[in-house]
């Protein structure tokens, strides 16, 4: 890890160029240094090749982890990538973005005693990166079925579903609201996790299979309806993610310096120059999930001088893992636990701080103010499914679609997956699994129709 460049005595308020472009680029370095070939082999040799491996059980997509690691150990990284992509077509993104400490690496038997887990995420990244570099064609399409499936959303769920369906011989049309494919991979993950335009590279790899048409700038409910899709296609998959951020419901929230963390990251990801992204001198991020961490760390890397994450409960309750919390702290982010926001304090309409009420054991404590000129809300996103005209005909919980084991919604012929379904964990890897499971289910349904 490079030493982070920090800004000093910059202008108050929200401003661009707190650091120059070179400093920003240097700050947004790799979160984890990728493995070189020899290091990958040495690390791969640490794998015990467990029977019924816990890592595979912990992987939402069920990747044969000991299997692919053994291939790396034996100098067959491309074969390893084949094994990974077979179960998880976004193995490259997941290797970068998965909270591995709570999934595969968290259950690695080498955690026992004083040992450390096999770095499964880095090994997966090594294999997939090697393979994508070689441009190996792992997949070919089965004989065309003549069936057509409409997929809404070009994010992890939609692309995973589309790819599997295309492999199985169906034609897929993906309707995407944004100008680029990738969903949160492109617009939502922290920039330092997805350097060098990886989301687009992966999208190109996925669509290079053929049989996947993408229609961009097409919003469900505005440009196309579910009913229309049902008429056009033999099946429909909804991978539409979530909409705008939830509101805090506190005074001052509407002020200019208060923004959604998701929107802040989105803007940052799409910026041509990182230094051009405006950021506060003092930033308060409210929330306890990965979005809070990503927003806070990136604000710091852009040159914010003081960045505080305020969370209303303790470290253990945070959705961001301890590892992620440490990651943020090492980069100079302060985490205030047990702090419930009460009001955004304004002066002349400008944000100057956030008032907090202590919670938990310190419930009786006095209110305190954290000075801030920018406040980022990372307290979850709401459903935007209501936009679909026929929303009422779907069974939903808190605006999230209810699906069965096969990711079938309550409406016949419509499947769904990713963040828009109920009971999910908001992970890329789970969205990929949803898309895969749904595609297999759709394939079975269409095959029965054909028969």
């Amino acid at each position, binding site marked *: 890890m490079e030493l982070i460049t920090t800004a000093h005595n910059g202008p108050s308020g929200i401003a661009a160029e707190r650091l120059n472009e070179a400093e920003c680029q240097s700050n947004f370095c790799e979160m984890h240094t990728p493995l070189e070939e020899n290091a990958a082999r*040495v690390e791969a040799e640490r794998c015990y090749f*467990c*029977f*019924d491996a*816990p890592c595979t059980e912990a992987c939402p997509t069920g990747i044969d982890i000991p299997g692919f690691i053994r291939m790396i150990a034996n100098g067959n990284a491309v074969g390893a990538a084949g094994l990974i992509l077979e179960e998880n077509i976004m193995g490259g993104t997941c290797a970068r973005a998965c909270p591995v400490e709570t999934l595969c690496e968290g259950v690695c*038997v080498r955690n026992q*005693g004083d040992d450390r887990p096999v770095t499964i995420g880095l090994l997966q990244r090594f294999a997939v990166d090697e393979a994508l570099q070689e441009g190996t064609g792992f997949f070919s399409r089965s004989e065309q079925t003549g069936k057509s499936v409409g997929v809404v959303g070009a994010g992890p769920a939609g692309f995973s579903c589309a790819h599997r369906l295309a492999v199985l011989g169906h034609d897929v049309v993906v309707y995407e609201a944004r100008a680029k494919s990738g969903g949160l991979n492109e617009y939502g993950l922290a920039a330092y996790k997805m350097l060098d335009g990886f989301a687009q590279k992966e999208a190109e790899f996925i669509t290079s299979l053929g049989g996947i048409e993408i229609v961009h700038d097409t919003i469900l409910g505005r440009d196309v309806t579910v009913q229309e899709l049902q008429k056009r296609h033999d099946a429909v998959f909804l991978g539409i993610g979530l909409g705008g951020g939830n509101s805090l419901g506190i005074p001052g929230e509407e002020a200019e310096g208060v923004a959604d963390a998701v929107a802040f990251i989105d803007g940052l990801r799409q910026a041509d120059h990182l230094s051009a992204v405006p950021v506060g001198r003092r930033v308060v991020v409210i929330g306890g999930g990965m979005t809070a961490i990503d927003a806070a760390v990136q604000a710091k890397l852009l040159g914010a001088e003081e960045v505080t994450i305020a969370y209303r409960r303790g470290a253990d309750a945070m959705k961001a893992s301890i590892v992620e919390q440490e990651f943020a702290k090492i980069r100079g982010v302060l985490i205030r636990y047990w702090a419930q926001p009460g009001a955004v304090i304004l002066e002349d309409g400008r944000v100057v701080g956030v008032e907090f009420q202590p919670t938990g054991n310190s419930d009786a404590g006095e209110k305190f103010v954290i000075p801030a000129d920018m406040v980022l809300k990372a307290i979850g996103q709401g459903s935007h499914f209501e936009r679909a005209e026929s929303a009422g005909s779907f069974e939903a919980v808190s605006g999230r679609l209810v699906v069965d084991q096969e990711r079938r919604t309550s409406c016949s012929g419509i499947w769904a997956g990713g963040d828009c379904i109920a009971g999910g964990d908001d992970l890329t890897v789970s969205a990929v699994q949803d898309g895969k499971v749904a595609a297999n289910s759709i394939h079975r349904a269409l095959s029965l129709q054909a028969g």
Partner: protein
Amino acid sequence: MNDLKSNFAGIESPNPFWLASAPPTDKAYNVNRAFEAGWGGVVWKTLGEEGPPIVNVSGPRYEALHGKDRSVIGFNNIELITDRPLQLNLQEIAQVKKDWPDRALVVSLMVPCQETAWKSILTQVEDTGADGLELNFGCPHGMSERGMGAAVGQVPDYVEMVTGWCKEYSRLPVIVKLTPNVTNIRQPAQAAKKGGADAVSLINTINSVMSVDLDSLSINPTIDAMGTHGGYCGPAVKPIALHMVSDIGRDPQCEGLPISAIGGISNWRDAAEFLLLGAGNVQVCTAAMTHGFKIVDDMIDGLSRFMKEKGFASVSDIVGQAIPSLTDWQHLNLNYTVKAQIDQELCIKCGRCHIVCEDTSHQAIHARHNGERRYEVNEEECVGCNLCVTVCPVENCLTLRKLENEVDVRTGQRVSPAEKLQWTRHPNNPMANADP
């Protein structure tokens, strides 16, 4: 520190650690450095007869088998005997011996199988003041194509004949270095003894082809797209060397014949094992070639502490102590019964014991207990084979439990190891006899 003084076949050295005849002992520069580092003796790299010097390849002459961590497990070479002029070697030997009078300096020799050739070189070596001779009947590559080295060691009659000449024309102790590339190592050892050898040393290197380059599809090491078999050594050959050394050590016909052990000795533990199985001293090459001469510090200190702990007053007290524990299969106690046991506290639940037992052995380790990931031995199937212990990554997690006066649930038989039952007397043996 315990006294490690060694007397091997009449050759004295301050410790039993010698460097084997090989590249590390090719010239005075290296040997001086070895003695400075503390080695007890060296066997000077093999001298050939007078004449145009030997020519070595100028391409790679070594290749290794690497472990996971790139440690050298096995090592192979196609180097020939010394390629330096005979007279230069003899001068240096004389000087080094003069400079290091307390160290053992043995000279390795290899000349054609002619009495005159041997007679000529023997006189010259004796004039250097060297302490002994080692006859190189082991080198398996290159020189053997010319009728020397292993080509001699593989024919017991030749071994006896040449040894006889050396004893006749030299007053120096004669150590005969044996090749392991034979079916029965006792035969050349017995031949050496018959020829009058003062000792044998073994093993020389094993015939080997190290690897094939999967890009060029030619063997490694490659000399201009061609290669040849080489001599294999290093830690990987130690078990083979231990077997051969101990086989001679327990051969009644070789009784009293000192053995200088060679073969994968890398540290004091290896050395102690060879001494326990009958070696009088040890020779080292690969470990030095992979780590330098300094390794002798650990060998000296470690062996000394081991001797103190076990109550051995001198190196010679160690020699052969483990020989009585080595026997033929037919004499093993078939009433001795063990079962695998898993320490659940230590178990990290990798399941390797289960899968190897399930796939390749006796289906004696269960993988789940009430749906939970938990590995348990099924004693009804366990034959105590040790495979699970071998693959378990956690030390002392899987061990073998000795059954003592209890019923083996696999056989239903009560086990009483005190009542020895050998195959020679086993009821299932049609050839069984009453005498053990």
